[in-house]
């Protein structure tokens, strides 16, 4: 089996880590800078947002304020969608319909003015993700019905230089609210992708536009110009998924393009499949069954070792056995190929995916320092749906941890762990999900449930002398 080479991965425009995080209905707590998931870029930076609009970026244990995107003092962003790409990341507040793009890499990350507001008040314009869209010191953001925003740094600040309509004119970006919508679905931009000096724009139809260095718009029809290298039929039957490989002769692009189809119609991005393609190979995973498959030169091979490794990982690391998978990607990390899955529980990755795959999870949380909000049970309610909760925490340094359960009168109920060694949190939890969990019984090994009610758990560290309390509700017996 021939898998994708690392060199291809670097060159390939689809070698992006695009994480979409929706914190629907969850109000971010003050000073909590990672909620509900993790956002990473390919440089393994972690991003977070506080309720005061601070954008934080860090790596490992260190976090620094990266920018601020609150439109006004004291404004709180919530229900956000964040897309992270190589060039920057995009934040969308669904409640107030605010959007902001942040750019990194070429500029000093300590400059907080690297935000660019993308709000089109009343225009109905939507912003889609940043990808590897950086070209000639300009990065591009898909504005859906309003074309493509070209953002650059002028006089030390980010600004929208222009708005490009695929196949149409380029408009000055000073008055965004005056930008008219594009005409026709074949010009509604789904994603923007820069390859060398060519800018690619996929749309909601079969049409794919590309902008040449000669400032010309051209288009291709992938269904006509691309070859279907294989068609997959899931074991459950419909829908069927198609993997398409690009015909590089007509586009002068080395990338391969994957498109998923459902009932014969393009549905980008696919709902139940994530895939990565590069050169003549593709890797796909059906997110409902988490079965991995490679497609290479027209032959389809399943990857049982990879699939089984992921299943084992989920069984041992996750309380909830069906984490949502947002995206799949490849990257280089310290010279090694790394397969990365963006899941609802954080970033899951494996290095030796071709031989002996073993998955790990990376996630950033606050160090334990006391108080109810510092640690939490996940989920916090034990009921008929959830038979076990995991006590989630991060340590500022490696220590021995004890976890005890108390009832609402603070009478001792049982012990979960007793001075067990746990690593520092850093980029992932210190929690050992296999041990730091409770099934609602006194023995923690099944049997008679404790009485329904509110319980408190206490996490203490032996050397650090830290202590924190959290809440768990038992709602069954």
């Amino acid at each position: 089996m021939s898998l994708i080479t690392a060199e291809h991965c670097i060159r390939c425009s689809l070698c992006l880590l695009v994480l979409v995080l929706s914190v629907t209905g969850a109000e971010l707590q003050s000073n909590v800078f990672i909620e509900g998931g993790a956002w990473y870029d390919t440089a393994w930076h972690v991003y977070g947002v506080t309720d005061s609009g601070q954008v934080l970026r860090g790596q490992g244990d260190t976090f620094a304020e990266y920018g601020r995107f609150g439109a006004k003092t004291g404004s709180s962003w919530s229900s956000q969608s964040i897309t992270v790409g190589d060039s920057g990341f995009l934040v969308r507040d669904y409640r107030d319909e605010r959007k902001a793009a942040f750019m990194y890499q070429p500029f000093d990350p300590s400059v907080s003015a690297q935000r660019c507001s993308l709000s089109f008040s009343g225009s109905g314009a939507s912003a889609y993700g940043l990808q590897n869209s950086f070209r000639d010191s300009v990065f591009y953001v898909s504005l859906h019905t309003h074309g493509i925003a070209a953002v650059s740094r002028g006089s030390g600040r980010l600004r929208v230089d222009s708005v490009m309509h695929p196949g149409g004119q380029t408009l000055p970006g000073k008055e965004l609210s005056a930008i008219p919508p594009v005409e026709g679905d074949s010009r509604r931009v789904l994603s923007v992708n820069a390859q060398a000096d060519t800018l690619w724009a996929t749309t909601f139809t079969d049409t794919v536009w590309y902008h040449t260095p000669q400032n010309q718009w051209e288009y291709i029809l992938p269904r006509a110009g691309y070859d279907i290298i294989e068609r997959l039929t899931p074991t459950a039957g419909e829908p069927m998924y198609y993997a398409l490989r690009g015909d590089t002769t007509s586009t002068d692009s080395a990338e391969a393009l994957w498109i998923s189809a459902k009932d014969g119609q393009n549905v980008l991005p696919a709902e139940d499949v994530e895939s990565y393609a590069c050169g003549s190979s593709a890797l796909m995973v059906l997110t409902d069954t988490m079965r991995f498959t490679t497609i290479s030169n027209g032959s389809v091979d399943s990857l049982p070792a990879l699939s089984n490794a992921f299943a084992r990982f989920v069984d041992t690391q996750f309380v909830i056995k069906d984490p949502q998978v947002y995206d799949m990607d490849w990257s280089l990390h310290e010279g090694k190929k790394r397969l990365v899955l963006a899941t609802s529980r954080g970033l899951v990755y494996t290095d030796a995916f071709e031989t002996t795959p073993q998955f790990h999870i990376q996630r950033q949380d606050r160090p334990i320092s006391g108080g109810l909000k510092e640690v939490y049970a996940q989920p916090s309610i034990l009921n008929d749906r959830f038979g076990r909760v995991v006590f989630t925490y991060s340590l500022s340094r490696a220590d021995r941890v004890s976890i005890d359960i108390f009832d609402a009168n603070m009478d001792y109920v049982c012990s979960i762990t007793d001075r067990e060694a746990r690593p520092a949190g850093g980029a992932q939890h210190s929690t050992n999900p296999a041990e730091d969990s409770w099934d609602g019984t006194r023995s923690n090994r099944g049997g008679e449930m404790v009485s329904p009610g509110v319980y408190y758990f206490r996490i203490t560290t032996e050397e650090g002398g830290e202590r924190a309390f959290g809440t768990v509700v038992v709602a069954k017996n």
Partner: protein
Amino acid sequence: MHSARLLLQKISLFFCIATALWGAGPGGTGDALLRAPLGATAASLGGAGSARPGVAVTHWNPAASALLDQSRLSLGNRIRPLGRYESYLSWDAPMRRRGMGGGALFRYSRAGGLDSLRDENGDMITGGESFSLVLDGSISLRLSGVLSAGLAAGWAFNRLPSDYEGGTVTNRDYSGFSGATVFLLYTGLENYSISAGLRDLFLTRSWSAEDGGSGVFYTIEDRAWTKAVLGVARHNLGTVTEFTLMSDAEVYAFHGGIADHPFALIDLGADWNFAGDLSLRFGVADILLNGELFDRGRDSRQYRPSLTAGAGYVFRERIGRSDLLVDYAFRGSGAGAGFDHSVDVSLLF
């Protein structure tokens, strides 16, 4: 007439004992809100409040109302660590001419920390509520000049988070019988008050007994049988007058065996009264009587002794001819969660 009164006494005593034997069973020990000493007076005495209850006799000893000197109306609040809160309103009244007494108690208890609940992905979920409302009534009968019997029972309402959907917590309500309490109080020995009783009779805790069931859930982890309480108060200790030593022994009979559980707990308290107006109180709560007294080993972590202290002051005839009492108590948490602070205001008339 005298024989008729003796017959009534025997019937009452029989009723109390029969009720206790009938109702005793695996119904639960009560609760978080019931196990925590109610009122600042009892809280400062380590929870030793049944032999000489200061306030809320409906809870501490329903047999005591028939022997009270004055009626009492009390309002109390307790602030507890981790966002917990309790308050109560009680009324205790003797009816001497009829040889009876009565009382009523309304309690509110709220759990904290429910603003930090998470879903299975670690995202915040909001709207969780947990509180209990209990309305109890009691009646007591003076069986003789030194012996009285009492019965208390009532209704409880509970709310508890049970699930969530779309980031919002679904709370579940529950209401029903709050359990019964029977007590005897004997004052026939010089300088002693002795009480004995059973709490939480007929109390069921089934979560699933909904739709017409009378299930009441409380948050205490033990699957204990009905709790038996023996309270002793020694007044005028030694040569020091106005010094009272009190103790409550709570006996648990666990149907899961006693190997991993405390067999009995004892609460001790001392009350030193100065000139009838100022009282200083100290206590030790939850002393484990299973052979591992004060042992901080693993097996004794369930109930660790905690120190309590408090004070009370009587303002004489401040409202008409009525006296006003103000009591304060604090109690440490064996789990290291902080201190409870209780304040009561009572009117004696």
